[in-house]
């Protein structure tokens, strides 16, 4: 073996820069401390929405960013998660902590059933098909009496705060920590995924399916795996959101807007990058919430105009998203020239 090869093999697998690790650890500690630093209810809500949308966008990032399949109906899995917890609590009194897993399983099964026929399509055809699937879920739930049809489900409120029922009426702080923990777990798992054999293979499928086939990769199976993982990440956010607002209906949790917003957040932050969804959510969600405060109601659609403007600028000047401002050797890999 020559010296150059030995040097290369002696390199660490990933960027283990202690400064970066310390920075991430510091941010995590700060996030845990934040509610005790005088954040009022609005800011707690804002942070909860950022965590929730970051995870939802991360879900979309797995299917679109890692495996290259543009899904426009991902809100369906959010809705399945929301209905799973609410339905089983309303009908059978099952704790949301258990039914969250029902939501994950149902979403996974739905993704397999949708994915097997749909992922035979590619590009625009797959995107359009998923858009229609997303809409059809909304229509079905609007007419399904068992789950409250168009009026949805009202989760019976507990008399006081209850960890078992995942309901907190006196403060948003417990919700903050629940969403934070799910956010951290999701990002950690996706970070691991991106560095695993599966992550490598998904990126191969995204970049060139024909070449991937020549490397023993069953492209169809890997697309389905990505779709299922993505759906299973999305579902718990629907479940937690349902527990957060305690009333769900098809127009709210199967709304096409959910599918679009996760796309916008991911593209803004950086598609295919683990940190992109977090960056996108940290920018877009405050814009949305503040425009609602200052302009009332739905924000006078100003947030949507701003989204559109930002998206156009990103597509033209930074197609890899805002994360591309951060040098790649810091976040992703050690690059030596």
């Amino acid at each position, binding site marked *: 073996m020559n010296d150059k090869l030995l040097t290369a093999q002696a390199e660490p697998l990933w960027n283990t820069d202690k400064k970066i690790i310390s920075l991430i650890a510091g941010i995590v500690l700060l996030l845990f401390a934040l509610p005790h630093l005088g954040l009022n209810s609005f800011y707690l809500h804002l942070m909860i929405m950022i965590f929730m949308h970051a995870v939802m966008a991360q879900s979309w990032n797995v299917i679109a960013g890692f495996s290259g399949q543009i899904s426009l109906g991902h809100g369906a899995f959010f809705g399945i998660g929301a209905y799973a917890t609410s339905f089983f609590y309303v009908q059978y009194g099952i704790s949301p902590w258990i039914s969250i897993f029902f939501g994950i399983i149902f979403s996974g099964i739905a993704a397999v059933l949708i994915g097997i026929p749909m992922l035979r399509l590619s590009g625009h055809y797959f995107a359009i098909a998923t858009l229609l699937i997303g809409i059809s879920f909304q229509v079905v739930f609007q007419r399904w009496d068992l789950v409250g049809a168009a009026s949805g489900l009202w989760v019976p409120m507990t008399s006081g705060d209850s960890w078992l029922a995942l309901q907190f009426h006196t403060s948003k702080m417990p919700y903050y920590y629940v969403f934070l923990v799910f956010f951290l777990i999701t990002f950690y798992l996706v970070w691991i995924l991106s560095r695993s054999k599966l992550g*490598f293979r998904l990126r191969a499928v995204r*970049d060139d399916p024909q070449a991937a*086939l020549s490397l*023993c990769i069953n492209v169809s199976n890997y697309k389905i795996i990505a779709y299922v993982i993505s759906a299973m990440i999305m579902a718990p956010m629907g479940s937690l959101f349902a527990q957060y607002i305690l009333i769900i209906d098809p127009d709210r949790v199967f709304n096409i807007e959910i599918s679009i917003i996760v796309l916008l957040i991911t593209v803004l932050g950086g598609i295919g990058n683990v940190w992109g969804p977090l960056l996108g959510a940290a920018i877009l969600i405050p814009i949305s919430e503040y425009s609602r405060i200052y302009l009332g109601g739905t924000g006078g659609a100003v947030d949507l105009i701003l989204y559109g403007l930002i998206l156009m600028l990103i597509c033209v000047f930074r197609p890899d998203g805002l994360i591309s401002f951060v040098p790649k050797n810091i976040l992703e890999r050690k690059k030596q020239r």
Partner: protein
Amino acid sequence: MKILSVENLSRAFGGIKANNNISFEVEEGSILGVIGPNGAGKSTLFDLITGYTKADTGEVKFFEKNIYGLTPDRISNLGIGRTFQKLKPFADQTLLENVMIGSFVKEKNIKKARDKALEIIDFVDLIEKRHHFAKELSTGQRKRLEMARAMAIEPKLLLMDEVTGGVDQKTIPGLVELIKKLKKSGVTIVTIEHNINIIMEISDNILALDQGERIAYGSPKEIQNNKLVVDSYLGTFDAA
């Protein structure tokens, strides 16, 4: 021992017979060169062998096992690697990541997969470029990348489509040496080449195609003296 047997392989696209009753065999450890003018059906033949295109009729046997009808991923899993005429690197990934995707086939452990990928990258003489994105590499380097990536699945048979096509003259000798090195490492090779001097130099046997038909099959000397090949492809070939 025969590693590959192709028997009466045919494929038509509409009225055009891209491959018509093609038969040949490849001995283990040898290099078979495939030549023919543009449109002769050379790349289609590769697609038929590797399952990217379904044959209308015929059989493809790999170590006596009929692989007709298998999907490309299953065929590559049996030990048939390939490169593409139109290069297909994973452009947004580094050279190392490109090759690691291949080395994961045999190595489950990420560190071992990385180290094996580095050995192969060193073999193709690109170790200093390992952290460069594929899209940043020159055409010659991308050809080496594709060879490295295909080698990473540890193929017994490697199909290479125009390795020296589209690269500058200075790059060609290095690529030819690489093919010879590959053969020495024990890999059986089927290679499509337009450069007749190279094909004569490296091949043990040559298959000549023209308009989807097999017009000759034999040693470089036999091909060189074959009137059909000379008329349709070689012209006034000067072996010197």
